[in-house]
């Protein structure tokens, strides 16, 4: 199964916070609604979002997500970076849109 560092290498994502890079990426969930991610994401999924505030880290910790990908050229807030570093959560960014990022990831996960 793909690991976080494989995904970074294969679809070209920028590392903002380097957490556990060897976590397995079991799938992907996409939502900017944190309540929705709390209700429907699954353990090990990579989470694509536009949200950049510190609560995304708490959601990733509680739900056991493998990493957070922030799209559209947005960056995590300084408090978010600090929190992710202390919780060992990987945050990645990309200038690509959510659609493009999801497409690349879909093909990658399906080819495995």
């Amino acid at each position: 199964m793909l690991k976080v560092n494989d995904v970074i290498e294969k679809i070209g994502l920028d590392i903002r916070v380097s957490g556990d890079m060897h976590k397995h990426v079991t799938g992907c969930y996409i939502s900017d609604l944190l309540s929705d991610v709390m209700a429907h994401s699954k353990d090990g999924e990579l989470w694509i979002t536009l949200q950049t505030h510190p609560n995304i880290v708490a959601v990733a910790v509680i739900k056991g997500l493998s990493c957070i990908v922030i799209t559209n050229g947005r960056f995590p807030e300084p408090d978010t970076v600090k929190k992710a570093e202390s919780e060992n959560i990987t945050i990645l960014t990309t200038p690509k849109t959510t659609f493009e990022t999801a497409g690349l990831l879909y093909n990658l996960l399906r080819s495995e």
Partner: protein
Amino acid sequence: MNIMDSIEGCFQLMGGDFTNAGTASSELKSTLSKLGVSQEVVRRAAIAAFEAEMNVIIHAVAGTMHYVVSSEEVRITLTDMGPGIEDIELAMQEGYSTAPDWVREMGWGAGMGLPNIKKNADRFKIDSVVGEGTTLEIVIYTRKD
């Protein structure tokens, strides 16, 4: 898991403290893991606790999260000094929320929190007095039978 006596702890929660939101639930999650509670129970307890913690941070001035772990169950009790819930039945409906717009912009306040707590709990009770506060009791059985 083989806990002879119950183990308990308590966290203080500050209303409006979004930066530290989730700290209590994350600590509870790792405490339960260390106690050897099954992964499924840890997962459900952490989700329910975090949703309840967010409600305190969004709606209340302050609150506490108290937990007791025994060989039978994980019991999480949240007590807050908040506005209280006028209509609990309505609040339990998916999609109903009284959260302000700026909280919704953060991705919260979709009216999914209380239903998600109920979904993850084996027993769930709300007591609320308008103008005083709300108490949530969440129980998750640790035994499979």
